[in-house]
């Protein structure tokens, strides 16, 4: 197993314990409510829209006062918002340089990918890629 940040490892383990897809969806719905930094709809713009997603999803990357990484996001579909929340919790406060090196295959670990359609999996990968790149830029800039 890759060395994920601890919060992400915890979430992965939670998903692994799920009995079936329905339970995993329930967990995603729960995480959808736990967005650490919700991007309010009035701040949804064409620029922060996640492309390749069927539903509307918006994400922005910021740094907290200590230079830690933050994902601000939201989506109109709960399952997507749940994925954003997991990412946001997983990397919250990490140095951007570490975020830049993460690989998106924790979604496989969580067994959620099997429950994502290709188009949504693509949307998720697009989003993850965008976040990783932003993190890389931020860490270069630093």
């Amino acid at each position, binding site marked *: 197993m890759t060395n994920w940040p601890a919060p992400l490892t915890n979430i992965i383990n939670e998903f692994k314990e799920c009995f*079936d*897809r*329905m339970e995993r*969806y*329930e967990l995603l*719905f729960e995480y959808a409510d736990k967005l650490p930094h919700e991007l309010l709809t009035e701040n949804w713009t064409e620029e922060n829209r996640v492309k390749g997603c*069927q*539903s509307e999803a918006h994400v922005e990357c910021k740094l907290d006062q200590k230079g830690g990484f933050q994902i601000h996001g939201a989506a*109109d*579909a*709960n*399952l*997507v918002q749940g994925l954003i929340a997991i990412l946001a919790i997983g990397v919250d406060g990490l140095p951007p340089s570490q975020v830049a090196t993460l690989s998106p295959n924790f979604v496989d670990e969580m067994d959620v990918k*099997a*429950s994502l*359609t290709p188009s949504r999996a693509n949307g998720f990968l697009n989003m993850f890629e965008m976040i990783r790149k932003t993190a890389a830029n931020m860490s270069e800039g630093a």
Partner: protein
Amino acid sequence: MEAIRSDFPILTRTMDGGRPLVYLDNAATTQKPRQVIEAMNSYYENTNSNVHRAVHTLAGEATEGYENARTEIAEYFGAPRDHLIFTSGTTEAINLVAYGWARANLSKGDVIVTTEMEHHADIVPWQILSKERGVEIRYIPLERDTLTLDMDAFEIAVSDANLVCVVHTSNVLGVRNDIERIIQLSKSNGNDGKGAFVMIDAAQAAPHERINFLEMNCDFLALSSHKMGGPTGIGGLFVRPEIMETMDPFISGGDMIETVTLEGSTFQKGPQKFEAGTPRIAEAFGWHAAVKWLSSFDMKEVHKHISNLARETAARMSAIPGIKIYGRHDMESCSGVVSFLHEKIHAEDLAHLLDSGGFAVRTGHHCAQPLMDALGVSSTARISFWLYNTKEEANSFVEHLTSIVDRFG
């Protein structure tokens, strides 16, 4: 019913968690009976050859099969074979009307009447034409309370219409328009009483009704094979020969010409003029098999079965807290489509949650954004029944939906 279902190999498929597939996305595309799959296999394994202008046995058999397909598909739709132009589907059929007929016969100031209920296939080609040629488009609104076309508005709009383009049966609402009256009004009142041309989008009608092109008395009828048990990649446009003669060629190349010289070309007559290049041969064999298979049913009974399923399911769904139905299912003519939303669970989430129970359900704007705008939503979830769907499937769908709403709503 067991017998019908056993004709469809895919219906025995098990999904996630060993659940049986419950395919409720028939308005997007229907499944194919093995008769259709086998007809295409047999074509590829025994007959495959390019058609027309050829002498050898395979080419002869392929040509005969291809042209027999035209004869019998046309017959199924109540028309002689020279009324049927094969296209790749409804979309290309409507584009053929737009490029081949409308560009040759309409000009600036002419009027096309269509409706808010249309599929994008019956909107975008006219918008492009309108931009290019200054033809005016008028959209008949939906009555917000009955979700049917505003026929008073239609009666007024049609009076100076040159072309009327209307969807026979909505792919979102389950509503079957009063096509008979629309055609009659277009013919009697259209174009200042001289009569308007009428194009009917029958993509959603053909799987439900036995359509008779000549009796209908419209000028253009557009269809897709894949929505009525046939393969992808083929469909058709019905046109009377005298109207075909007023159409310019559209897609051009081999097979549609009579002579080609460096100075210019002359074209075939009849459907061939609009079928350039190697045709969809295997697909014609497949669609033919679908039509033969469908002929073994009484389509009135089929329709009753489907619309009863939709009506009963819609009624039970509206009793689920938070579920709202978008459409009409109280009339006999209604189709197998039920669009719905939950007040809290996003349509796409609903579809995922249903999918985990084995239920194939579509979400989105269903290529009908103007209709979505009229309904005041950006998308809906949609189930759509066809002849192989059972009461048991409908019941288990309602149960699963109920449990989802309980758990996630």
